[in-house]
């Protein structure tokens, strides 16, 4: 039995999927019908409208599920006039970021802004040809061996 009237916020999202707080533009807020069994991680909704209407929608938020989702391109339901199906896959990163992840402590392995360049974690590469320098010692006044001299050691 399909579940009707599930509010869904449909977005155009332009961020890399690895961004925690994604850059989104709300396009539609719709009451949708949940298709099939409830799957909080991969829900599918049925919407009224043409495929073109939802062609740029790639992200959604379902308040009832309290989750963000990546959205696949819409699909026209066969035999159904004016109905399309959209399928979402849970964006656990943004969902968690919005619900408390940012308050947690973590041991950070790599970071863009805060780092210790004296750690060698094997992530850097080097060329085979070393930089080779020859540096001579600098002598100050009175330093160095100077002129050679004889030494005569005599018994008695």
């Amino acid at each position: 039995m399909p579940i009707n009237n599930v509010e869904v916020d449909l977005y155009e999202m332009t961020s890399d999927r690895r961004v925690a707080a994604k850059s989104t533009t709300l396009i539609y807020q719709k009451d949708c019908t949940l298709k099939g069994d409830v799957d909080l991680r991969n829900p599918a909704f049925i919407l009224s409208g043409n495929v073109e209407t939802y062609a740029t929608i790639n992200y959604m938020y379902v308040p009832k599920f309290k989750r963000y989702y990546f959205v696949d391109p819409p699909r026209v339901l066969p035999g159904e006039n004016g109905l399309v199906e959209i399928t979402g896959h849970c964006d656990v990163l943004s969902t968690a970021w919005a619900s408390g992840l940012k308050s947690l402590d973590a041991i950070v392995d790599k970071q863009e802004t805060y780092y210790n360049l004296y750690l060698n974690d094997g992530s850097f590469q080097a060329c085979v040809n070393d930089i080779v320098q020859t540096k001579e010692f600098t002598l100050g006044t009175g330093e160095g061996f100077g002129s050679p001299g004889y030494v005569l050691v005599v018994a008695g």
Partner: protein
Amino acid sequence: MTYYVRDLKHIKLKHNGVDIDVPDVFKSFHMINNALSAFRTELATTTGTMDPSYGFNHYNRVECNAFENLRNEDFTRGAWFDGEFLFQYLKTGADTVTLYNDQYGTDFAINFRFYNHYDTGGNDYYAMTIETVLGGVSHGSYVMTGYHGIDSGGWYRKFYFGVLTDKDTATGIFYTISVLENSNGVAEYTVDYGSPSYTRADWNNYKYQYYLMFADDYSPPVSNDPYANTGEAAEDQLQTGPAQGDPDDSSDVINIPSKPSLNLSACQMINVYVPDLTGVQNVASYLWTNFDIHDVNNTLSKVFTDPSQCILSLHVLPFTPESSSAITVTFGGFASSVSLPPASEQYHDVDCGSLSFSEYWGNYLDYNPYTRICLCLPFIGQVDVDPDEVMGKTLKVKYRVDVITGSFVCFVYVDGDKVLGQYAGNMAQQVPITSADYSRLNAAILGVAATAATGFGIAAAGGFSTPQTTSDGGLTIQGGGLNAGALGHFAGSVIGSGVDNILNAKVRVAHSGGVSGTPGIMGLMKPYCIIHRARQSVPSDANVFKGYPCNAKFNLSDLEGCGFTSVRSIKLDGLKLSDDELGELRQILAAGVYL
């Protein structure tokens, strides 16, 4: 609730608030047989009063609901504790002994208190009460008495105590079991006070309802495991709290020592002169002038003493030693016609300058083993310098030379005279006076050359070489190294471009052999360094795409807006996500996200 046995090492005792030693009996292990079944049998309790003629007053109360989920195996490890030792502390009404687990403090404790003292028939009887303090679990004051002494029946009586705690809720559950030992020392724990033949029904309807067992470290059965009981168990190595290191960043300054105060020429067995070329020519002329019949003294001295035999050494040093005003040269005590300036010092220092080192990349590549520094020293050859010891500092070299022999010690040091190393050799160029001298000199030179041959060419593959000392006057020749098998890496196989891969495939080459002694004066007279630095290959803005090593704890909110972040470890508390989602989240964080 499930109850488990706790480590005995956490059991602590206080007498009137002052720590006292936990007796060894705490640490004994005793298999408690059928304790659970015995305990359940005892759960149905009544209160009663013992016959006061025995000096007891006791009642008991058990909170049965705390013991519902006991399992027999929870009781299979424990120790009997002879409570009799408590009576040495419980002598007055003010005395209390507190038994607790130091992991939870005295919020979970047993308090043993002095109760009464009886003196009957010349025997001292001390009685005590037991009060249990259990946080979070309904508890009561279990009052029980015991006594110290021997009853009239000749039976020894002891009371046994232990501690059992719940690992999940940190609830301490205390069970005491009253045990009557017969004269054979057999504990009959299911039997009330009295002889084994007595039953509860025979004993005025009161019972001992307390089962108290000490937690002990579980001792595994003896097995054939060769590693069993061979030392400290891994669990004993656990700790809580921060690491207990004692970081000591201080460093001692190793200074160049003062010159030796002993001057060989002061003993007057020898004289040391510093002739110039004319002076040497004058000596030669003196040694090989013809006999003159008119110069009797001169002739006689040369007949009876060959002056050349008094010459111990004529050598050239790469510097002119300090000298004073010329004096007459004596050969074997005979004054010659030659005057030469005597040496005014035996030990002469030669400073050979300095070289400063600074980071090239500003990262780990500036240090050992990714940067290598080879120091080439006059009269010595090649020595390795550890970049970690000189980076950001100024490296200096000083030779301290014994003018008489030409031997020297070369000090390699950094700022503030911190000596990093010392190397010995000889820098005298011997002047052969006789044919014997010449033969010996050639032999020495050939010996140096033979030894030096091993120092040329390819030493071995490896990222770091180990110094080797020859017997040639302390000369050090660098050779050998780690991972000689890595030569195979060089023969056509693919070498990964990771820094460590490059390092292990590199071949070390020695830059000099033996240059001491006579040949040394023809060598380089100024130290120099050959520095090998890894050539890093890092794309622009690599930190944006993959981050740089961090290895620090952050609150993620502090990294908001700070870009790429990969998480090595995080405790995902408080997120209302399914277990699968949390697992996916952990993987995403480890791979790297943008906050």
